[in-house]
C-alpha cells in the first residue's frame, strides 16, 4: 500500500480546484494550470492527488505535465529566467546567451539554483523579435542581449 503524504490544506485546495472543474477527465489540463498557479510547480504528490480526484491514471497526468513545457515539476526560482529560442532570437545568438546563463548559474534548462533564487527556462517567441535576442526575468524584458551582459543582469538580482 503506497502512501502519499501531503498537508490537509494542500489536499483541500487541490480538491477544491478539481471540483470547480466538475472533476471531469477532459479538464485535467485546466486543473493543472490552476494548481501550478497556486503552488508554483507540480510535484509527483500533487499529480497523484489530481489523478485520484479527476479519475484518471497518474501516468496520464504525468504524460500531460511532461508534454507541455509550461508545466514544471521543480519549483521555479524567485526570479524565473526565460530565454527566447524563437527563430529570430536564435539566429541572433540566443543559444550563446543561454549557455552563459547556464555557466553563470551552474544549472541546466528546467532547473533551479540551490538557493532558490533563479530558475532557467526556454520559451518560443515573446513577440519582441525586434529586440532579439530576448530574455525575460520575471516580467521584465531584456533585449539585444550578448553573453557579456549576462553577468551584470544576474547581479541586479543577487
Amino acid at each position, binding site marked *: 500500500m503506497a502512501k502519499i503524504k501531503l498537508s490537509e490544506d494542500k489536499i483541500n485546495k487541490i480538491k477544491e480546484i478539481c471540483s470547480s472543474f466538475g472533476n471531469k477527465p477532459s479538464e485535467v489540463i485546466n486543473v493543472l494550470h490552476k494548481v501550478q498557479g497556486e503552488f508554483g510547480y507540480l510535484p509527483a504528490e500533487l499529480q497523484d492527488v489530481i489523478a485520484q480526484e479527476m479519475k484518471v*491514471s497518474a*501516468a496520464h497526468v504525468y504524460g500531460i505535465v*511532461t508534454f507541455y513545457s509550461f508545466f514544471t515539476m521543480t519549483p521555479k526560482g524567485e526570479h524565473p529566467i526565460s530565454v527566447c529560442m524563437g527563430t529570430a532570437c536564435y539566429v541572433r545568438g540566443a543559444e550563446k546567451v543561454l549557455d552563459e546563463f547556464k555557466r553563470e548559474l551552474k544549472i541546466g534548462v528546467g532547473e533551479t539554483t540551490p538557493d532558490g533564487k533563479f530558475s532557467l527556462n526556454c520559451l518560443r517567441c515573446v513577440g519582441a523579435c525586434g529586440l532579439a535576442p530576448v530574455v525575460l526575468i520575471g516580467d521584465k524584458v531584456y533585449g539585444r542581449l550578448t553573453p557579456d551582459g549576462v553577468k551584470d543582469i544576474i547581479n541586479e538580482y543577487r
Partner: protein
Amino acid sequence: MQLAYANYLLTIKEKTEMEMINIIIDNKPVKAEKGQTILKVAREIGIDIPTLCYYELDGVNLENRPGGCRVCVVEIEGRRNLAPACATEVMEGMNIKTHSLRVVNARRTVVELILSDHPADCLVCSKSGKCELQSLAQRLGIREIPYQGAQSTYRKDMSPAIIRDIDKCIMCRRCETVCNVWQTVGALSAINRGFEAVVATAYEQDLVKSPCTYCGQCIAACPVGALSEVDQTRQVITAISDPTKTVIVQTAPAVRVALGEEFGMEPGTIVTGKMAAVLRTIGFDYVFDTDFAADLTIMEEGTELLNRISKFMAGDKTVKLPILTSCCPGWVNFFEYNYPDMLDVPSTAKSPMQMFGAVAKNYWADKLGIKREDMVVVSIMPCVAKKFECQRDEFKVDGNPDVDFALTTRELAELVRQFNIDFNAIEEQDFDQPLGESTGAAVIFGATGGVIEAATRTAYELFTGKKLEKVDFTELRGLEGIRSATVDFNGTPINIGIAHGLANARQLLDQVREGKTNFHAIEVMACPGGCIGGAGQPFHHGDFDIIRKRHAAIYREDAGKPIRKSHENPFIQALYKDWLGEPCGELSHHLLHTHYFDKSKHIEIEG
C-alpha cells in the same frame, strides 16, 4: 460516458451501413462501404498494405490507430500529400495507389528513419524472428541504415514478470492502448514530446511501483522487443541438471491449444500428448497437469459458492454475493489495487497453479519422501502474471515458493527448440499419475466463461442432488466482453456474470459496488478470450481468428474427455479421502485458500 460514446458511434455506423461507394485501388475498381478506412478495404480485397503502429483485435473491438508511424501511407490521386491508409476513410471516386514508386520510396524512408533510432540487437533480441519491425525491414529490402543520428537511451526496467527495454520502443503506443482501453489499468502513458517522447509509467518509476497488474497484454501487443517477459528457461535447465532436485512440471489448459503454433501447426491444433512427450524428453521427473488442480479449484470454489448461497438463502445478510473467481492473477492484482474496499468479495480459493504447487510440495513431496527444498515445481502457463503470482510471499513457506518458476508457452517452445526436439514427429504420451488426471471441466478453464461453467457443472449436482443431464452450458460461452446468464438450479435461479478484459470487469465491479446487480457469481479473466489469449501465448500479431480457433479447440478437448465434471475425477476424490478431508475443510483452508491485500495508493494527511 464511454458507453454513450460507443453507442453514438454505433448509430453512426448503422446509418451509414450498406451505403456503398466506388473507388479504385491499384487500378482495380472496388465497391467499398462508406466510412471504411483505405486499409480495411484494401485488406478485404487481398491487398496487403504494410502497417506498424496499427493494431486491431476485432473480436473485442480494440483498435490502436494513432496514424503515427506513416508506414501505411498511400497515394491518392489529386492529393498533394501521401495519406495514412489506417486513418483515411474512402470517398466516392478515390483513386488509390498502395505501392506506387512514390509510396514505396516514402515507406522505405520512414522505416529507415525508425531504424536509425532502434538498437541493432537483433542477434540476441528475444523478439527476433517474431518482430514486426524486423520483418518490415526485410520486406522493404532495407540493407543499410543511411541515417546516423542520435539514439534515445533509457534505463531498463525489470519487474518480476515484465521487462521494459524502452531503447527498442518505436512509439506505436499499442501498449498504452491495451493498458488504458482494454484493461483500464493506467500504468502506461506517452510522456514528453518530440525526440524524447516515449511510453512510460507515472514519474518514470519502475513498473513495480505502478498500478501494473502484469497481465502482459502490452507484451502481446508490442511489435518489437521493447516489452518482454522475464525469461526463466536457464533457471529451469539448471534445476533439471541438478541431480539432488526432483523437478515437477504442470501445464495450464490453454497451453495445449496454442503451443503447436510455434511449430507451424494450424491454430487450434490440440497438442496435449505431444506436450507431455516433449516435457518428459526435456527431463522433467514428473509431467503433471494444472488441469488436475483446476478440478480441485472447482471443489473448493464451488463449495464456497454454495456455502455463500445457502447462508444467503437462510437469511444471512452479511454474506458477500456475488462471489468473484480468483484464478486470474492479473485480475487479482487489479482488484487489490482498485477495489480495496471489496477484498472480502472474491473467492479465497487459490488459483489452480498455486493449488497444484501446494499439493505438490506438501502431499506429493511427502509421498516421495523428499523435503520441499529438494522439489522444484515448474509451471507452463499462457500467462505472464503467473511469474509474479508464484513470487508472492503468501505462497512461500520459509522463503521456499510452492511454485518455483512459471514459464510461458513461448518459453516452453524455446526449450523444445534448444533441446532439438522434433515437435511434429514426436509420439504422443500421457501425463503421469495421480496429479495428471483431469476432466473436461478443467480444460475449459482456459477460455472466458469456462471456470464458471465448470463450477456450474459441479455446483448444480451438489446443490440439487440431481444428476446433470446436459453438461454443456452454451449460454455461458462466447467472446462478447460482458455476458450474463441465469442457470436454473432445479427451481432456484442462479445469476451468473462473465467478463474478460479488465475494462469489462471494472464495469461489472462498479455495478456490484453500487449494489446494482443480482449476480450470485462473476467470472473474470484479464486477457482477450481468457487464458487462450494470454500474454504468454504464441504471438498472434492482432489476428483474432487465432484466438477464435484456440477457443473452439478448448471446447473440442472438453467434449472429447470421458469425465466432464470435476467432482467425478477419481484422483480428486482419492485426494480428499486420503489427505484433504472435505472441501473448504481445515487442511484446505490452510493450503488451498489465500487472502488479499490493499495495494491502492492512499492519500494521507501529513502528521
